[in-house]
Every structure is written in structure tokens, then in C-alpha cells.
């Protein structure tokens, strides 16, 4: 074989701690190496041409580049090989930067190690086989999980481009948290007014299949070819018959046994309910936990009220399977509560703020409902306990957020802005009232954001106090808020009528379970993780799955909408091709030695191992062996390591290749 070795300086990155010329010179004498050269920037056009020309001139049948990480430039160099007529898999990379120059500071050591790294790669490339990428077809339909503003945006964008979308929402209605908000910063436009038309658009869009009150049960397959099982939870109401007239809701006698989720516990809802009047779809649900029929079998009020015969007490959950090529995950967030947590929770509550027992110490979403014209007080700011209008109100930022002692290191990002909005709305509605905001820093990066906060301070005279609050306790119907203004260096005690806590954003509690179903990465809080924080911010490491909105990290409406459109664009890029090419680094079974124990099937995380029957010409079953579905296999090598008879090999990483690499060091 004739191997070419190309050593890159990466400017100073490698050149500073590795004598690249000496490495190239030393590598020239490795058996099989026909040419060995060094160059300042191998990834540049002249660098690539150096490789291409050498392949042609020396008729190389293997190339090793000693440079950066394969993550950075493996594709670049493979393409160069390909352009010169060499199979791109006859190429190997020795990582002289991350594995050597960046972590050493002695030139002699760095140079010697670099030679070893190249020698290893040369021994491997000698045993490489020409490979062809795997081609798989693309199903041009998308699944969007979550029907908040992010999911709505992604679904509308994909559907608008002419592709079918299945939108799955676990609640009875789409709309998410945005449907609960009063006004939105920094423009103070009405949240429902801008959201509900988009909800209706989703409902009426011919390319969108809306599955509300449904959850993703199982995900199989791979990029371009997912098969998703969806649980359609029993509403106890037949969607095909219901007209949404609301008579059943009116007649439901169980009015005060369940708190309204939509009103954040500030009001009751009946057992038979739609979350809010503008719900999409406008089909009610029976809460079986409180409904009299499900407890005693006695009540039939809704059945009598329904002129369509749409009530179905016997309805069961249904399972449907959908074939899709791309998945957008947009499951959103929840607010952390300050309640006392169980010992095994990763978060702790705020005992110093009363662990959530004070009725008039509420969170931001509850304040949204109080400020909303459609809310339980018709938009008047009144305390939950006695319905009095608070004359003095305290807002506290960073409750949970940035509080490591409670289990959070991160900033929830939106609280500075919505707290300014809350204080402003309060001052607009209660002119004589006093509003205080305790904050640590004001983070108002965003168009018109800083101006908005200044408006709260300068025009509405909201008093901003820089410092955290140590304690809240109730005394004679007031809430004593004990804080410090670190600017004045003074302890501050405010006897407030009401306190609003800007509590941390957390992912939905089931996000880790969903991530496991999807096979995507999530962090220690349950936020989903993108594949690259800068250049691939909406893609998951698992191909074909994209992220949108606050399920990725705390973010506000404009950012969520932008991210959703970006995720939709990524899905559309995928739908732009009829077939996909994948790296052929997959496992392969040697059928003649496979004993059919199927340990490989047990350990495979991607359900890629199947059973194949081997029959003789007469059609008699000879044996059953393992078979790897190339579409599903991710090339992790677990089966390879598990197989007792060494019958599974990872193409491109065979035992022979790996042993050769080790021997190269001996």
C-alpha cells in the first residue's frame, strides 16, 4: 500500500508545541508511507490541493492527516480524498491538537507523541476497506410534540411549506402558557389576541392533524423514518359528535372539587370542562378523578344535557401509530414552586418564604391570571385570600433561579422582563399603590427591553431594591418582607399586602422520560440538549429530531418563536431530499459463526438487532442468527463488545484494525 501523511501546524495551535516538520520527516520512514509533508493550514484550499495532488501523483491508496479533531475537519479531508478519486473511507485523522499540542507544553514530548499518533493512524488506514454510505428514504411528514407557541409556530411553518404535520398536545387544548398571559413585554400587547388566531389556524390547516389530550407513548426508527405511537387519552366525550356547545359543562354539578389548571389554582373548574373559553379544540373533557359518575355511577347530568349523545363514559385510551421523517420537540416549561419538596427531589423549597403556605404569596403565572381580563378577577388585581386590592405589593426576582442552595445554577432569563411588566401593570391598575421589586441584576438584553425596564422605574415609579429577600412571614394580615438594599447598605422591611415571586422555569417533569423515548440528550435539570451550542443550536445529537422553545432552556416568546421556525426549517431541509446518506459505520454479523444467543439484541440501545432465519435450499430452517438493521444501527459497538463468539464487527473499527493500532505503539 501507498500511504500519504500530511501534518498540519494549525497556525500556532499545533506548531507551538509540536515540531511539525520533524513529525513529517519521521513519519516518512513508517513502512507503507510513500509521501510525508507538513503545511501551515492543511484545511485551507492550498492544503487540500496538496493532498489531492499527492494522491494523484503518488497513486496513494490511503491518507492520514495529522491535525485537529475529526469533529472539526474529517468531512473536509474525506471530501478532498473523494475529489482525487480515492474512496473517502480510506482516510484517517490523527488528532495532534486536542490530544497533543493543547494539553502538553514540552516540544520534545509533543513531537514524539505526535509521531506515535500518526503511526497509529497509518496502521489503521492500511486495514481500511473502501465503503459506501448507506442510503435511506425520507418520510416527508413531521411530528410536533407540544402545542404551546413554539409547537404552534413549528407546525404552521412546516404545514405552510406543504408537508403534513401531526401536532400532539397533552392538555385538552393547545395554547400553552402563552394563552394564560395577560399582556406581553415589551409592547404590552394582549397575549390572547395575538395567540388565539394562530391556534385557530392550526385547527383549520389542511396539513395539520391536531391530537390534543394525547401523549407520545413510543418512538421507533431513525432520521427520515420514525414510527411514533401516540396515546389518545379518553376524554369521555366523542370528538366526532361534540359541537362544543358547552351545555354539558354548564350542567355539571361538580363545580368546586377541582382547581382550574388554566387559572393556576385561583379558581375552580367543573368535573366536565374546557380549560378556557377560546380552547382549541373546543371539546370538553371529564376529569374522572372528581366526576360523580366515576365514583358512584349516580350522576348523568352531562348525558342529559348533551343533545348529540356525545358523552361516552366507557371511552378508553386509544393508540395510533404515525410514520414521520422528522420530530420537533416543543414541550415547554413549568414553574418551580417554593413548596417543601420530598427528600429525594433535586430541588429544595423556600422554608424562609413559608414553603408556599401564604395565600397572597403567589407566582408569576398566578399574577398573569389576576391581571388578565379573562381571569378570575376580571383583570382587577385582588389578593387571593380576601379579594382586597393590595396597596403595597412586592415582587421578588430570582426565586429558585441562580439559587444553588435550592438546586438551580441557571438564570431563568424571562423574569426580569415579566416582573417589570407585572409592576407596570399593577401601577396602571392601582394608581395609588406602591410597587417594590427585589432584584440581583437586571438582565434586559433584547430589542426594547432595557427601555421597558427603565419605563417601569422612571415613568411608573416602581421602586427597585438591589438585594435578595431573607424572609417572608405573615403578621396581622400583612406579609413582612425582610430584605437588604445592597446599594444603600440598609436592611429593608416592607409590610406588603401581596408578594409575587418570579419562580424559576423548569422543564416539564416528564421531560427525562420523553428524552429517553426519543433517544435524545438532556441535562441534569431535564432540559434537552442541542448537538452544538453555537452552530447547531436546534438539532439534537439524534438525527431528525429538532428542538424548539423553553424545553431547551428558559426563553421568552420571540426567542421561542424564532427557534421554532429554525427547527421547522431544519425539518424542511431534511424533506428537501428523497434519500439520506449515512456513514456506513455500522455493526455487521458474521452469520457463519453467529450462535444465535442474541445477547447483542439485549444490549442494543437502538433496537437495531433483528432475527434472521437461515434455511437450506429445501426450505428447512438451519438456524436463527442476528441481523443488524443498518438504518437503525448507530455504530456504538456495544454488540461488538458483548458477542461471546466474536461474530459482530463494527465496520471501520474491526478488531483487526484496533489491534493494529495498539501494536503500532509497542
Amino acid at each position, binding site marked *: 500500500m501507498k500511504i500519504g501523511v500530511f501534518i498540519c501546524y494549525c497556525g500556532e495551535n499545533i506548531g507551538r508545541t509540536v515540531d511539525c516538520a520533524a513529525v513529517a520527516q519521521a513519519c516518512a520512514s513508517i513502512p507503507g508511507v510513500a509521501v510525508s509533508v507538513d503545511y501551515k493550514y492543511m484545511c485551507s484550499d492550498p492544503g487540500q490541493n496538496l493532498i489531492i495532488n499527492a494522491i494523484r501523483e503518488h497513486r496513494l491508496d490511503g491518507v492520514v492527516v495529522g491535525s485537529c479533531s475529526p469533529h472539526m475537519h474529517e468531512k473536509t479531508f474525506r471530501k478532498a480524498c473523494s475529489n482525487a478519486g480515492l474512496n473517502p473511507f480510506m482516510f484517517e485523522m490523527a488528532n495532534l491538537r486536542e490530544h497533543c499540542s493543547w494539553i502538553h507544553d514540552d516540544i520534545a514530548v509533543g513531537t514524539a507523541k505526535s509521531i506515535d499518533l500518526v503511526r497509529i493512524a497509518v496502521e489503521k488506514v492500511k486495514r481500511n476497506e473502501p465503503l459506501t454510505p448507506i442510503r435511506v428514504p425520507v418520510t416527508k411528514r413531521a411530528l410536533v410534540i407540544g402545542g404551546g407557541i413554539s409547537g404552534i409556530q413549528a407546525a404552521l411553518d412546516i404545514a405552510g411549506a406543504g408537508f403534513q404535520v401531526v401536532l400532539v398536545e397533552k392538555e385538552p387544548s393547545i395554547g400553552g402558557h402563552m394563552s394564560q398571559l395577560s399582556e406581553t413585554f415589551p409592547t404590552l400587547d394582549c397575549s390572547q389576541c395575538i395567540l388565539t388566531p394562530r391556534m385557530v389556524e392550526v385547527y383549520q390547516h389542511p396539513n395539520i392533524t391536531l391530537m390534543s389530550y394525547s401523549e407520545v407513548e413510543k418512538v421507533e426508527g431513525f432520521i427520515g423514518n420514525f414510527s411514533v405511537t401516540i396515546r389518545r387519552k379518553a376524554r369521555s366525550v366523542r370528538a366526532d359528535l361534540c359541537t362544543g356547545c358547552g351545555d354539558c359543562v354548564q350542567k355539571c354539578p361538580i363545580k368546586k372539587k377541582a382547581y382550574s389548571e388554566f387559572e393556576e389554582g385561583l379558581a375552580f373548574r367543573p368535573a366536565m370542562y374546557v380549560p378556557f373559553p377560546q380552547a382549541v379544540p373546543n371539546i370538553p373533557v371529564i376529569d374522572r378523578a372528581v366526576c360523580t359518575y366515576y365514583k358512584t355511577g349516580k350522576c348523568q347530568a352531562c348525558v342529559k344535557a348533551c343533545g348529540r349523545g356525545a358523552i361516552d363514559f366507557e371511552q378508553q385510551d386509544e393508540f395510533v401509530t404515525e410514520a414521520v421523517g422528522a420530530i420537533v420537540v416543543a414541550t415547554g416549561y413549568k414553574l418551580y414552586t417554593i413548596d*417543601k419538596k420530598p427528600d429525594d427531589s433535586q430541588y429544595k423549597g*423556600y*422554608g*424562609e418564604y*413559608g*414553603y408556599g403556605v401564604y395565600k397572597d404569596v403567589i407566582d408569576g403565572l398566578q399574577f398573569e391570571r389576576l391581571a388578565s381580563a379573562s381571569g378570575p378577577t376580571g383583570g382587577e388585581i385582588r389578593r387571593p385570600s380576601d379579594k382586597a386590592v393590595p396597596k403595597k405589593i412586592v415582587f421578588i426576582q430570582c426565586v429558585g433561579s441562580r439559587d444553588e442552595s435550592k438546586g438551580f445554577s441557571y438564570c431563568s432569563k424571562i423574569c426580569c422582563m415579566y416582573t417589570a411588566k407585572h409592576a407596570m401593570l399593577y401601577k396602571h391598575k392601582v394608581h395609588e399603590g406602591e410597587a417594590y421589586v427585589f432584584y440581583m441584576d437586571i438582565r434586559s438584553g433584547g430589542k426594547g427591553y432595557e427601555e421597558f425596564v427603565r419605563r417601569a422605574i422612571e415613568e411608573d415609579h416602581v421602586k427597585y431594591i438591589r438585594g435578595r429577600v431573607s424572609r417572608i*412571614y*405573615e*403578621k396581622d394580615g400583612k406579609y*413582612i418582607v425582610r430584605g437588604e438594599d445592597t446599594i444603600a447598605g440598609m436592611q429593608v422591611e416592607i409590610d406588603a399586602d401581596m408578594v409575587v415571586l418570579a419562580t424559576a422555569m423548569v422543564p416539564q417533569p416528564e421531560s427525562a422520560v420523553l428524552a429517553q423515548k426519543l433517544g435524545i440528550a438532556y441535562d441534569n435539570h431535564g432540559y434537552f440538549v442541542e448537538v452544538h451550542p453555537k452552530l447547531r443550536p436546534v438539532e439534537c445529537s439524534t438525527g431528525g429530531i429538532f428542538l424548539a422553545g423553553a424545553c431547551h432552556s428558559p426563553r421568552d416568546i420571540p426567542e421561542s418563536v424564532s427557534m421554532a421556525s429554525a427547527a421547522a426549517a431544519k425539518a424542511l431541509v431534511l424533506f428537501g431530499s428523497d434519500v439520506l446518506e449515512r456513514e456506513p459505520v455500522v455493526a455487521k454479523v458474521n452469520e457463519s459463526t453467529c450462535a444465535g444467543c442474541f445477547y447483542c439484541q439485549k444490549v442494543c440501545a437502538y433496537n437495531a438487532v433483528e432475527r434472521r432465519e437461515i434455511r437450506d435450499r429445501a426450505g428447512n430452517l438451519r438456524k436463527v442468527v442476528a441481523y443488524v438493521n443498518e438504518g437503525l444501527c448507530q455504530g456504538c459497538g456495544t454488540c461488538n463488545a458483548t458477542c461471546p463468539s466474536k461474530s459482530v464487527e463494527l465496520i471501520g473499527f474491526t478488531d483487526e484494525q484496533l489491534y493494529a493500532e495498539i501494536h503500532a505503539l509497542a
Partner: protein
Amino acid sequence: MNIGYFPGCSLTGTSKEYDMSLREVLAALDVRLDEIADWSCCGASSAHVTNHLLSVALPARNLQLAKEQGMAEVMAPCAACYNRLVSAQHEIATRPELKGRVEYVLEQKIDGAVTVLNIIELFQRIGTDAIAAKKTLDLDGMTVACYYGCLLVRPAALLGFDDAEQPQSMEALIAATGAKTVDWNFKTECCGAAHSIARTDIVVDLSKKILDDARAHGADAVIVACPMCHSNLDMRQRKMKNAADGHADIPVLYLTELIGLALGIEHKKLGLDLHFINPGPLLARAARKEVAA
């Protein structure tokens, strides 16, 4: 039940009624105290404030004595001693270099560990059923505020005993005596602790706020489990009378005294005559209903 006993200096002097009532009550509940022979001061805040090594070495000496005397568990009724003993043992266990220095200072090797209990934990172990079973007087005429102070509950992660902000363990015990407890705000606010002598002014201010809150929530006595808290809240009420808004006396009892009352133990044996604020009138009014046979 037998348990090791570390009385601490206060219980031999300023807080001797805590020691008296503790011994009476535990004897009535069939608990035998094995006092650590030749125990010495834990160093209290003074060592803690000025000399870290001494603040670990002095408790370590006592824990070592307990081990040598065959005790697996030691109860320290004083919240400050309890806190110092637990903290010192934790520091020795987690900082090997400190352990070496302590061994040098004490001129002996340190090995093994002793479980250190506070008085509430001991009562929890005895159980509210056992207390209720021996009750002869129902205290349901009394409404009390349970005051935990600082050193019983903080740092919560280390002591692992009760919630640092909203503790409830004392209330649960007191339920067995029939006495009512109030939900109040200042059960873990600081009374000024060791500043009693050097900065009495601070202690008077802080302690007054605590007592005012207890009274405002309807308590007619405050229950404590710490001699420092007791002397600040009880003895310093004289000086509170000089405050602008005046001060009305409120008795401060040790947890052991309250339980002793329920068990029908004589007031004098519980040291109830040794307080600065005489609880006599309250007890005459509220603590006289006998448990029906």
C-alpha cells in the same frame, strides 16, 4: 434505656433547673443517664469565635472519653454543646489534616464515632406514646410557643434533625402533654446567644422581639431546649421593661419542665421556682386538670 450524658457547664450552674427537670423526667420515663466521667467544657462560642483548633479539640476530648467509657450514644441537652459536638466530630471525620492536629493537641489517637443526640431526639426515641401513657396532668389549658433558636436546627444539612426554617419536632412532642402550640414567626430567630454578658443590649432587643411575637400569637409561655436561649429570654425580661413600649412578663420553660408537669412531677423538683419570670400563676391557672383514670 441507657444513654450517655454530656451535661455541659450551664446545666451545673445558671441552668441547673434544666438538669434537675431532665433527670426527674427521664427517670420517670425509665431512661438511665450515664454521665461522661470527667467531662470538660465543649469550648462554647468562645473557642469557636477565637480559636478554631481548640473549638474542635475540646469537644473531641469529651467524645473520646465517652468512647473510652463504652458509650455509643451521647445526649447533650444544651443546644450549643450539641451543635459543637456534632460539628467537631464532622470536621474531624472530613478533614484528615485537622484530625492530626487535634490528636497532637489531645496527645491521643482519635478513633470511631459517637452518635450525638439532642434532647428532642431523645424524647422522639422514647416516644410520645410512652409520655402520654405516664401523663397524670393534662396541660390543655396551656398554649405555648416552641422556640428552637439557632443551634438546634442549623446547619440543617449537618445536624440532619429538623427543618431549619419551619421545624415541627417540638410541637409534635408537646402534643402528648395536651398543651396547645401556636404557629408563630420567630421560632428560629436568633436571641443574641452568647452576647448575653458582653452585649446585653443586643440580646435584650432580639429576645424582646421573639417574646412579643410569641405573645401576639396567643402563647402564654415559651418552651425552649437550650440554656442560652433560656437565660436570654427569661433573665433579660427585667431589662425589657425599660423599653419604650414596656414589657409584660411571659414565663419561659424548658421542654423537660413542661413534660415533667404533665407527668405530675413536683414543681420544686423541676426547678420551676428558679426562673426569673415566675411561672406559678400560669401553672396555677392552666396546669391543674388531672387525667381521668
